[in-house]
């Protein structure tokens, strides 16, 4: 895998509602640790301001988007609760930052994904076109 990236990385924070199990004091501690973590990354220029997502929403699917189903996605551990875009050059740095997240102490998980320079669909369409040309050459 090419680990050199010019486009940055996205951290996707996934969890269930673990914070409902914590006491007020514990929760306050995690929130301030987490805020300090993001502030430091932002101050160092390693992260753009992050966004938390409300734990509700809908999913649109089907041809012409006819099917609209409600979230919420409450119980699932896979629900994305927020994201952070990192301005770092390598996957190793992005993973090191993810590992330093205070929320991991609470059995959450963080997906680390390279931002694509070009849409992978576009790249694949060109590959397929080349393969067809070769096959007919």
């Amino acid at each position, binding site marked *: *895998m090419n680990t050199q990236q010019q486009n940055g990385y*996205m951290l*996707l924070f996934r969890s269930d509602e673990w*914070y409902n199990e914590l006491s*007020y004091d514990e*929760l*306050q501690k*995690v*929130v301030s640790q*987490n*805020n300090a973590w993001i502030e430091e990354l932002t101050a160092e220029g390693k992260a753009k301001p992050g*966004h*938390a*997502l*409300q*734990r*509700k*929403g*809908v*999913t*649109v*699917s*089907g*041809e*012409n*988007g006819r099917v*609209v189903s*409600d*979230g919420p996605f409450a119980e699932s551990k*896979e629900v*994305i*609760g927020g*994201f952070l875009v990192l301005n770092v050059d390598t*996957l190793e740095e992005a*993973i090191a930052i*993810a*590992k330093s997240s205070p929320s*991991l*102490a609470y*059995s*959450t*998980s*963080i*997906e*680390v*994904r*390279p*931002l*694509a320079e*070009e*849409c*992978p*669909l*576009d790249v*694949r*369409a*060109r590959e*397929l*076109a080349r393969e*067809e040309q070769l096959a007919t050459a």
Partner: protein
Amino acid sequence: MSTQNQSQNGYMLLFRGTDLRKGLSPEELQKVTDNWMAWFKRLTQEGKAVAGNPLEREGKVVSGKERVVSDGPFAEAKEAIGGYFLLDVATMDEAVAIARECPGLPYGIRVEVRPVAGECPIAADLRAEAQFAQL
């Protein structure tokens, strides 16, 4: 959803499903891609999309207290996130109307529409609780 139909902070579209390219000819795939890019460009020009990116297929997952690092894929291909848009629109209805224009929908792509929180919802809960405790 009527009372919760507003978000001051915009909406995020998460595109789920990364196996769309299976079964499409190069021309069809190119058409979907072109339509997708034109769609994003138009939304940007209209001031409705403020950010967006496709994601590379590969990646890693860091999880739990032990900080275990494992390889993607992260979910079944139909659940995996292939990219996102950040929308600057005021209501869920507008966000859903935009989601319905996604050129990937006829090919099994699903679009998750999520209100962006002004601050971490956990911090907001904490503040509400602190206010309640003072009463």
